[in-house]
């Protein structure tokens, strides 16, 4: 494996929300590393803490009840957790930028596309207005939208869902950020449009070399765009591996369950292997392994104590008592 620079390292991240009915531990000990030019997928269902992890990295928790209680987020080796609001704002858009699930809510409805794109450039770069406009146009063209000149003068409501998502991507990349965080960027889109956007993201990775953190619940999408995968459940990372390894040898019972529970094209089964039960209520988190109540292999030990990571070689790690003992014995 070639050694690349670690552009983003998240170490032992804990983000808690302080609500009126108690503390919600949304992210509770998350570690991962994003290498330069790679795409890291974070997979998880609702409540797994994947989006909160992204918000923590973006420093977007200031206006919520959420706080990073513990842990480090190293951007190019520098911890960005203790930075001031103003310093974090400087990083956002410039060094890290984000694409959201619903493009309509993240675009300003009363500003023209061109204005929104150039504003972003003018905030972080010392260039003239005309120069910014030119950069914006060029970026928008890279995302493959037709009639760029006209679209720069249009408003978000005049665009289709796929076009809006392209504009969002252009906006996120226009300042050449070191890292792109994409939070379910294709979930709201149709399959044929999703295929266009995934294609675009793969092309941009090749051409510009963006390092991407790709958050999704769709394992099919993960298989298409990611190099490395982190599987999250209840605020924890349960399995980490490169994408080929993970799909070939899923080890954690939750990862296996996810892979088995989705119907696959061309597969004929009468019954899907569903994961029983529901994600536990954050108020009643189980004591041991958080997945134990839904796990078919759970033993007494699983209900009592939480397992640590076991290294399975090749950068594949898994947080399960079963691997610790070596196999499924």
């Amino acid at each position, binding site marked *: 494996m070639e050694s690349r620079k670690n552009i983003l390292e998240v170490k032992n991240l804990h983000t808690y929300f302080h609500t009126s009915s108690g503390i919600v531990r949304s992210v509770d000990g998350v570690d991962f590393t994003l290498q330069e030019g790679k795409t890291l997928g974070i997979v998880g269902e609702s409540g797994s803490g994947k989006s909160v992890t992204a918000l923590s990295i973006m420093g977007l928790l200031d206006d919520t009840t959420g706080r990073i209680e513990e842990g480090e987020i190293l951007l190019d080796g520098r911890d960005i957790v203790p930075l001031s609001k103003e310093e974090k704002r400087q990083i956002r858009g410039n060094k890290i930028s984000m694409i959201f699930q619903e493009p309509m809510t993240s675009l300003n409805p009363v500003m023209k596309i061109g204005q929104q794109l150039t504003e972003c450039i003018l905030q972080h770069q010392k260039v003239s207005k005309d120069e910014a406009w030119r950069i914006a146009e060029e970026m928008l063209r890279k995302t493959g939208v037709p009639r760029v000149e006209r679209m720069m003068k249009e408003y978000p409501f005049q665009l289709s869902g796929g076009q809006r998502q392209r504009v969002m991507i252009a906006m996120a990349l226009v300042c050449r950020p070191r890292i792109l965080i994409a939070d379910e960027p294709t979930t709201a889109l149709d399959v044929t449009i999703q295929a266009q956007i995934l294609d675009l993201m793969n092309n941009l990775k090749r051409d510009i070399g963006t390092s991407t953190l790709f958050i999704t619940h769709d394992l099919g999408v993960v298989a298409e765009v990611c190099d490395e995968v982190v599987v999250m459940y209840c605020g924890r990372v349960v399995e980490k591996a490169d994408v080929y390894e993970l799909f070939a040898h899923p080890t954690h019972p939750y990862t296996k369950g996810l892979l088995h529970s989705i119907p696959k094209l061309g597969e004929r089964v009468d019954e899907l292997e569903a994961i*029983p*039960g*529901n994600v536990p209520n954050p108020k009643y988190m189980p004591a041991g392994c958080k997945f134990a*109540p839904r796990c078919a292999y759970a033993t007494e030990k699983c209900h009592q104590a939480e397992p640590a990571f076991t290294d399975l070689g090749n950068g594949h790690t898994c947080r399960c008592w079963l691997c610790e003992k070596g196999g499924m014995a």
Partner: protein
Amino acid sequence: MSQKEMNPKDTKESMQNEEIRTPVSEVIRKFVRQKNAVIALAFVLLLVVFAIIGESVAPYGINEYDYSCILQGPSAAHWLGTDEFGRDLFSRILIGTRISLSVGLSAVTVGMICGTILGLLGGYYRGMVDAVIMRICDTLFAFPGIILAIAIVAILGSGLGNVVIAVAVFSTPTFARLVRSRTLALKNAVFVQAARNLGASDARILFYHILPGALPEIIVQYTMSIGSSILTASSLSFLGMGAQPPTPEWGLLLSNGRNYMMTAFHTTLFPGIAIFLTVLSFNLLGDGLRDALDPKLTEG
């Protein structure tokens, strides 16, 4: 996989142990957290008690003339002083509570019922029904409330009963508009469509699904309107169009006291305070209910 296994232990236990959180208990939980609103509620309840038993606890009768002590300031014998006929002001205000409260309550109740029915019909059936209802409401809205009330009383003649009608008429459009907009929104809610899909009749949909959904707004508006209606009713009496002497209506007390404001300020001050506190507490109560009933706050 058997169905039993689909409910894992943790969810089941946690849910079974938790007390049932009905929508009503949620609202109460949210309401008692707000100090202002709880104090306002206590004051409103006190007013209601006075309205019921005022007559029997008042130290003097409302028409007990005592010419030996006219326009006296507050004293041990007359807590809030006396008026130009030597009548005890405290007793008159206390007993007047019933009049002010019942005028406010009955007028707004009539307005609420009419407005709710009109709003439900207009919002649900649209078309001509809606157009006619809303144009009438627009017309009524075009008049300032007090002028409208004066006009109605001018037509019907003065007296408390006509004040109730006047206040009811001008509070109806507020409710009609409010309920109509909620009906329009809820009519297209998925659970209302689901009910229609089950074969529910229009009446069932209106009264089981849409009305309960509009109820929080209606309750808040109702509470707020009582305050303003008491104020309007008092204003009408103050102008001589409502209650007639010697009724101890608060607006009338204020109006009587006006002549002696320079020499005996208490004759205007205390009825004024009574009106002020009553209206204020109804508004605070409404604010508190609004926060307690707001579904957005309930979700969190």
